[in-house]
């Protein structure tokens, strides 16, 4: 996961790109076999120990999902904790410092 975040007047814009194939379960591989669905289900953003965003994804979110949102009351130096979990139980968590 790559995160870019910058705060101005206590309002932090957060952008992220999560590396994930986001297989829909409808596409076929080179041999004509269905590629099973493999997609992020839930992505969360925590700020000061509180979940401020819960994003639920289906299979129609693009490969390597991109998300942008804005947190009120987040200053430079604050740490954000971003996590995702997918339908196969894989997950990733990163911490990013607001710039």
């Amino acid at each position, binding site marked *: 996961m790559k995160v870019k975040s910058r705060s101005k007047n206590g309002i932090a814009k957060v952008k992220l790109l999560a590396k994930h194939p986001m297989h829909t379960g409808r596409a076929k591989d080179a041999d004509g076999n269905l590629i099973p669905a493999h997609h992020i289900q839930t992505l969360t953003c925590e700020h000061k120990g509180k*979940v*401020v965003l819960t994003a*639920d994804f289906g299979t129609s*979110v693009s490969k390597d999902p991109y998300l942008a949102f*804005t947190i009120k009351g987040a200053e430079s130096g604050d740490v954000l904790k971003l996590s995702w979990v997918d339908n196969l139980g894989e997950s990733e968590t990163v911490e990013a410092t607001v710039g």
Partner: protein
Amino acid sequence: MINRRKFLTVLGAASPVVAALMAFPGTVLAWAENAFKATSVEDAEAALFPGSQAQPSGQVKLKAPQIAENGAVVPITVSTDLPDVSNISVLVEKNPNPLCASFKIDPALQPEISVRIRMGETSNVIALVEAGGKTYQASQEVKVTIGGCGG
């Protein structure tokens, strides 16, 4: 176009501190399987917001292209000036499963979300906003062409 220097500054401003596979926090609510597996906008909406009928609202702003550059990556932004927003959801009417993404919005968040979605064909894109216990919507048609060439 972002030039190299600007780009580096932006990156430097938000260096990820930790990047490791970790146990997922157990505090999240369950993924709304019924809503995501629904095959019509109506069913998805009913699963997301039981008993609520979305009203068209000029206060829901949906930013989407007229003609998608490529259906695999369609940038969408939903924002609203409605008060007490608790959820923003994005649906594509003609996708096999219309619900793309559903965001639970905390009061600490500005009600504005950008996301990149997939579209199989030309379709209405629908933004649903739950605010103050009611549901509002805005929609826009996005054309998807079968591209052959392109840069």
